[in-house]
C-alpha cells in the first residue's frame, strides 16, 4: 500500500509540512526532510521551485526564486533524494508546477519518483480533466497518487468528480487566496469545512493555505484529517535557519 494511504489510516490528525527544495541553502533538502520526520511531522511536501508560481504568495515566490538562484533543478533534486528511503519512512510528496515536469517528460519524471520512493504529486496547474485523459495511467503505473485541490468556490458536482478521480486525499484550500495570504479562520471557513465534512467523500481531506500556528492547525483538523503548513514554515526557517525547525514543529503540535 502507498505510504500516503497507510498514513491516512492512522488514528490521528496529520501534520504535513511544505518546504522549497534548495532553500535556504542548496543542500538543505535532505536534512530538512530528516529533521521534520524526527520532530513528529506526518507527511512532507517537497517544493520543486518554479520561476512563475501562480498560486503562491510572496513567501513561497521568494523562496522559489532563491532556490533557483542557488542552482536547484529537477535533476539536482532527484540526485539529492537518492537514498532518502534509507533514513525516512513518512510519505513524501513532490509539489510543483507542471512545466518543469513537462520538460523533464511526464513519464520519466514519474518513473524517477517511484525509484526514489516518492509517494505522490501535487501539481496545482495540471487540471483534473487533463490529468484524467492524458496522465492518470502513467501516474498509476508508477504507483503515484496525484492530489487535487478544491476551494470554497468549487461546486459540489466538481468536488464529487475530483473525489472520484482521487486516490489519496483531497487538498482543501481554506479560502480563495494564494498561499500565505490569510491568517486565522472566520465563520466563512468554518462553514466551508463543515459543509465538506458532511459530504462524506471517499477521500479524506487535508486543509492547507492560511495555517500558521497551533490555533489554526487545531481549527482545521477539527473537521479534516490533517493540515498542511507551507508559508509559515518557510518564513520560520528564513528567519531562524533550517536547523531551528524543531521549535516551529513543536509550536504547532503542542
Amino acid at each position: 500500500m502507498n505510504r500516503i494511504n497507510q498514513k491516512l489510516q492512522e488514528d490521528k490528525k496529520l501534520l504535513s509540512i511544505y518546504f522549497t527544495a534548495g532553500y535556504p541553502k542548496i543542500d538543505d533538502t535532505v536534512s530538512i526532510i530528516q529533521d521534520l520526520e524526527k520532530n513528529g511531522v506526518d507527511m512532507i511536501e517537497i517544493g520543486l521551485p518554479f520561476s512563475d508560481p501562480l498560486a503562491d504568495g510572496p513567501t513561497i515566490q521568494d523562496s522559489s526564486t532563491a532556490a533557483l538562484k542557488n542552482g536547484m533543478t529537477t535533476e539536482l533534486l532527484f540526485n539529492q533524494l537518492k537514498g532518502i528511503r534509507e533514513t525516512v519512512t513518512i510519505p513524501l510528496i513532490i509539489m510543483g508546477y507542471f512545466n518543469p515536469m513537462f520538460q523533464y517528460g511526464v513519464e520519466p519524471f514519474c518513473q524517477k519518483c517511484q525509484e526514489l520512493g516518492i509517494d505522490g504529486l501535487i501539481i496545482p496547474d495540471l487540471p483534473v480533466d487533463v490529468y484524467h485523459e492524458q496522465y492518470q495511467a502513467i501516474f498509476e503505473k508508477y504507483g503515484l497518487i496525484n492530489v487535487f485541490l478544491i476551494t470554497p468556490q468549487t461546486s459540489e458536482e466538481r468536488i464529487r468528480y475530483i473525489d472520484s478521480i482521487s486516490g489519496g486525499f483531497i487538498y482543501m484550500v481554506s479560502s480563495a487566496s494564494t498561499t500565505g495570504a490569510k491568517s486565522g479562520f472566520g465563520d466563512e471557513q468554518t462553514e466551508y469545512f463543515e459543509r465538506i465534512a458532511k459530504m462524506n467523500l471517499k477521500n479524506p481531506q487535508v486543509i492547507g493555505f492560511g495555517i500558521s500556528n497551533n490555533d489554526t492547525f487545531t481549527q482545521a483538523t477539527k473537521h479534516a484529517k490533517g493540515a498542511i503548513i507551507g508559508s509559515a514554515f518557510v518564513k520560520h526557517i528564513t528567519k531562524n535557519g533550517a536547523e531551528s525547525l524543531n521549535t516551529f514543529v513543536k509550536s504547532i503540535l503542542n
Partner: protein
Amino acid sequence: MLTQMKKENIMNKEIKNTAQQVPSPTGRVREGLALKICGMKYEDNIAQTASLQPDYLGFIFYEDTPRHFDTKIPEISEDIKKVGVFVNAEIGTIVEKVNEFKLDAVQLHGEESPYFCSILRSTSLVTRPIELIKVFSVQEGFNFEVLEQYENVCDYYLFDTKGKLPGGNGYTFDWSLLNDYSSTKPFFLSGGIGLDQLDDIKKFKDSDASKYCYAIDVNSKFESEPGLKNTSILREFINKLKGKKTMNYNVDEKGYYGEFGGAFIPEMLYPNVEELRQNYLKVMAEPDFQNEFNQLLKDYVGRPSPLYFAKRLSEKYNAKIYLKREDLNHTGAHKINNTIGQILMAKRLGKTRIIAETGAGQHGVATATVCALMGLECIVYMGEIDIARQAPNVARMKMLGTTVVPALSGSRTLKDATNEAIRDWINNPVNTHYIIGSAIGPHPYPDMVTRFQAVVSEEIKWQLREQEGRENPDYVVACIGGGSNAAGTYYHYLHEPDVGIIAVEAAGLGVDSGESAATSVLGKEGIIHGCKTLLMQTKDGQITEPYSISAGLDYPGVGPMHAHLCKTGRAEFMSITDDEAMTAGLELCKLEGIIPAIETSHALAIFGQKEFQQDDVVVVSLSGRGDKDLENYIDYFKI
C-alpha cells in the same frame, strides 16, 4: 462578424438570384455556399447554435414531427435569418407565426400550389418582407418541369430527399440529378447531409450540377436527439465546409489550436474561467451586445480605421503596400478593440472590479479608459521596472482613475505583472474580471481576444474590395508579442490559402545574442500563464526573460493560435532586430508622415528583407502610434 457598418451597403445590393456569386445575406464571404441549420427546438441550444453564425436557422411549425417548435426564440444576431417551416398550413397560420416570431423566410414543405405561394407572397398581412422557399422532394428521378409554374412566385427552391416524413428522413438523394436543373433560381440542397457528406459536397461544388446551388441545409445528422443540435460537430462541419484546406486554425471545443492552448490553471481559478468559457460565445452573439460593441467601436474608438495605400513606401519596395491604421484608434493602438469587448462582457457577467496586466502601458491605458467609461473600479499590475521606464502611461492610467500596482516579483516586467494579476484574481474570485490584453492565457481568452480583434480583418476585407476590387490580399503582415493585433489581422484570412500570413517577432539584439524575444525560433512547447504554447525557457522548464527594444513584444511566449500557425507552417515567421525595426520606423516617418510604435516598426522592417512581386497586395497592421516611444526614438537616433 461583429461589425456591420459600411459593408452592408456594399454587399446587400447583390443578394438574390445570382447563385454561386451570391454572398450570404450579411455580406460574409463564403466559399459559394450559405448554410441553413433546420429543426431548432430548444432555447439554449438555439443560442449556442446561433453563435456558430449560420445564415439561416429553421423552425418547424408542423406538429407531427419530434422537431416541432413550440417554445421561444431567444434574441439572436440579426445577421441570421429565421425560417419558419410549414407543411400544408393555412395562410392565416403562416402569417401569424411570421409576425409572432419575426420570421425572415417561409419554407413550404407540403403540396402548396403556385397560387398559394403567390397569395402568401403578396399578402399585406405580414409585417415584414419574407423570402419564400418552396420545397421539392426528390426520389429516384425528378421532373424539373414542375418548377416552371413556381418560377415567379418564390425566391428559392429547396431539394430534399423524398421519404416517409416531410423532411428529416436522414438520407441523401442522388445529387447528380441536379445536372438536369432547368431553372436559374438559386436553390438549397437538403436531405441527410452530415460530416460524412463533406467529400460529396466538395465534388458536387466542383460539378455543373451545383451551378445554382445557394445553400446547404442540415438537420438530423447534427443532433444528439431530435431538435437538439450538437454544436461541436456543427462547428467542425462549418469549418470544413468553409475552409479549402481541412486544417482548422480556429480553436476547438476543448480550447485547443492543434496541440496548443487549453486551460492549465490552478483549481482556484477554475470557477472564474469556467464561467467565462460557458458564457462568452453566448454573450457575444446577443444582439444588444453586438449593437453596443459596434456603437462604441464606431463612436468612441473611431472605427472603421482607414486602410491606407502607402504610395511612396510601395514605390520604394515595389509592391502594393496598404497600412491598416489601428494607430488612429482612441488611445493609439488596436488594444482598445479588445478592452471595449471585455468590459461589456464583464458587465454582463455582473463583475464590478476589473484587473489587468500591462507591459509598456498600452493595454493598461486601454483598460483604464474603458473602466472610466463604464464607471468600474480598475487595478492595473505593472512591473516595477516598466513603471519607471513608462512614466507617461502610468500618469495616464492614474488620470483615468486607475490604481497602478507595481509587480515586485521576479524580473519585475510584463511576465511578472501577469503573474500578479492572476494572483489577484485567485484572491478575488467573485466580483472581479481579468481583462487579458493579448491572445494568451487559459481558454477561452485567446479565442475571445481574437474575436474582439477580428474587426480588423473584417474591415480590411471590405476596404480592400473597395480599393482593389478583391477582398483577399496576397499577404497580411503583423508584429507579434503575445499576438492580439496579429490574431485580429489574420482572423478572416486564416482559411483563405491564397493569403500569405507573415508574423514578425522581435529578435532584440539578434536571435543568437541571448537578448531576444523571437519565440518561434527560441521557444519550446511549454506552459505559461495557463496555456500550452511555444515558450522561451531553460532546459529545466523555468521561464526565461526575453528582450526587445519594444516593450510590447517583450514576452517569453506567443499566443497558442500563433504557435499552431507556426507549427503547421500556415504562417511565415520572421525575426527583426532592434536596429532593423528602428530604421524601418524612421523610414515610415520620412516616406509617409506616420510615426509608428516601435512594435509596429518591426512589421514594417520586413520590406527589404522579403521579396514581393510588383503586383502583390500586402496589408500591414499599423498596430500603434509612436507617441509613447518618442523617448526611445530620441535616444536611439540622437535626435
